[in-house]
């Protein structure tokens, strides 16, 4: 680092040293961002823990800090709620539904993303435009795509899926797909895969294009088929990026509210923890119980992430 000579003569105290001035400038530059993020993300996150142990409702929202302490009462209420707890195969409850939904949707997203990336990794005319089109589901506003799919899955005979399946003779009467227990969850999972595969695709594609082509040449010399090349060259090279996408997507899917809320409103066996949190807080206006639900969601997520990063993502060769 260079030190302007004029200022070195003028100031000699530590306060005015170049490093100190640089550090002060850095803090001034980052302060607005830090204040916004701390006051609107990190403080609320901590405050949320506090709310989950207190009885906060619409009546005492204006004097939140005087809300009565109720200990684990909010958590007990959540665990006892029929919408939360597992009650057999007919009614999974939000916790189990959330976990199954996130895992299946993430896996499917990853598989479809891998397929799309393999397709686009081949050179062909119009590849650039095709890649842009493949991004549409991911970048289009959630409200638009959710409502288009609801309109395609419309229960009336004028719904596209009903019409197609009736013409093919698969069904005789129109079905209410998003209002059928089981099917609704499956369709929501398909929707997630349709919407979020482009993210996986882009990450995988970037990694695919960085694979050393001599690896494939060596495999060909050894007489490996296309499938063997995929299993023994491509997949091992993709291992880390697949692991990272799985973690990110799982986290985001687990936290996702909009998609299910807009598609089914959380009905017909698709009630996940974020939707339950919303219902407790903004339908029943029991903010304490809502916060407790959100905390349970966060704890499940953190425990899984710790396990995943510690066990699954660890490289056995490093030990």
């Amino acid at each position: 680092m260079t030190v302007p000579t004029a200022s070195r003569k003028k100031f000699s105290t530590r306060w005015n040293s170049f490093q100190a001035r640089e550090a002060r400038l850095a803090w001034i530059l980052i302060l607005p961002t830090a204040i916004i993020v701390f006051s609107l993300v990190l403080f609320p996150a901590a405050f949320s823990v506090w709310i989950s142990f207190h009885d906060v409702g619409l009546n005492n929202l204006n004097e939140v800090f005087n809300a009565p302490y109720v200990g684990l009462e909010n958590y007990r209420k959540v665990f006892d709620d029929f919408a939360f707890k597992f009650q057999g195969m007919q009614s999974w409850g939000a916790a189990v539904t959330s976990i199954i939904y996130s895992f299946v949707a993430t896996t499917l997203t990853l598989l479809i993303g891998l397929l799309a990336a393999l397709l686009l990794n081949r050179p062909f005319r119009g590849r650039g435009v095709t890649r842009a089109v493949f991004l549409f589901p991911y970048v289009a506003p959630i409200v638009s795509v959710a409502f288009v799919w609801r309109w395609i899955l419309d229960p009336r005979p004028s719904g596209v899926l009903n019409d197609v399946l009736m013409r093919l003779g698969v069904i005789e009467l129109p079905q209410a797909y998003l209002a059928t227990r089981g099917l609704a969850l499956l369709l929501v999972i398909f929707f997630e895969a349709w919407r979020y595969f482009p993210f996986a695709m882009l990450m995988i594609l970037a990694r695919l294009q960085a694979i050393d082509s001599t690896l494939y040449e060596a495999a060909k010399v050894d007489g490996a088929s296309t499938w063997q090349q995929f299993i023994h060259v491509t997949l091992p090279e993709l291992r880390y990026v697949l692991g990272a996408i799985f973690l990110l997507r799982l986290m985001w899917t687990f936290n996702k509210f909009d998609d299910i809320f807009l598609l089914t409103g959380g009905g017909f066996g698709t009630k996940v923890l974020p939707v339950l949190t919303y219902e407790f807080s903004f339908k029943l206006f029991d903010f304490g119980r809502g916060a407790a639900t959100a905390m349970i969601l966060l704890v499940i997520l953190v425990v899984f992430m710790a396990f995943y990063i510690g066990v699954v993502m660890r490289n056995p060769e490093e030990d």
Partner: protein
Amino acid sequence: MVAQSNNKESKNFIQHLANWITVPRFIFAAGLIFFLTSILFPFYWMISSSFKTRAEIGAREPVYIPSALRLDAYKELFDPNNPSFQDFATNIFNSMKIAIPTALIAVILSTFGAYAIARLRFKGKNVLLSSILMIYLFPGVLLIIPLFAMLAQIGDSIGFDVQDNLSILVFTYLAQTLPVALYMLTNYFRTIPAEIEQAGLIDGCSRFDVIWRITLPLAIPALVSVAIFTFMIAWNEFLYALIFLNNNDLFTMPIKINTIYNNPSPRPHVVMAASTIMTIPIVLLFLALERFLAEGLTAGGVKG
């Protein structure tokens, strides 16, 4: 892709196709067609439904190709003389009033922050950076409860409304977009060689001169892409707007579309027309700037 059918010397098109097609090529073409139809059909359905009449929408069978480009749905959205006028123009403006300031402020603040992180040495940098990136972990529904309670409290003592206040929404969107913007810009600044700036400092420029005249012009592509992503996040956002807005005149587009959808008399063509208006700008942007924006997506430009 398509066999060259204009080569008429000896074989016809079918023979050419038969020669061209091999098992891998067939699988490849079939895969591509499957992906393209399942991606494009919903978008086609959205746009075509928006040009249908109420009769076509309510028909016994779906109308795959509208009989004409009828503007019934758009008239309902924009024509004040229509019996079920929705005043959608106001909602478009509301969305812009939120998305443009969010994008501008996010770019300015994250430029400052990213410059500090990429170029300057100071204590607590790593702690600060990792706590800012923690936002990736917190679900929106977790933050909305304390935010609502907190802002109601502050609003009560200072005297502003938490509900139906567009500036409050801008602040909450900033909190969501700043970490991503900071991360993307920091990475970009690190690719600009520090020597260029040091040369400027030696020539007697001040820090701000250096940032303003050297670093920023070099970072314009990254600044534009951050602006587009933050604009998009604010433009598409649903949950916070749903909770913070109650007044019809202040609804952003997503909330308005949700309201029209949940109207007791279903009017899918109007919902599709409004969705088309909201979607087209974003989709065109990506079609035009795909090469440039795809990188931002993999850097987490859109969280979710």
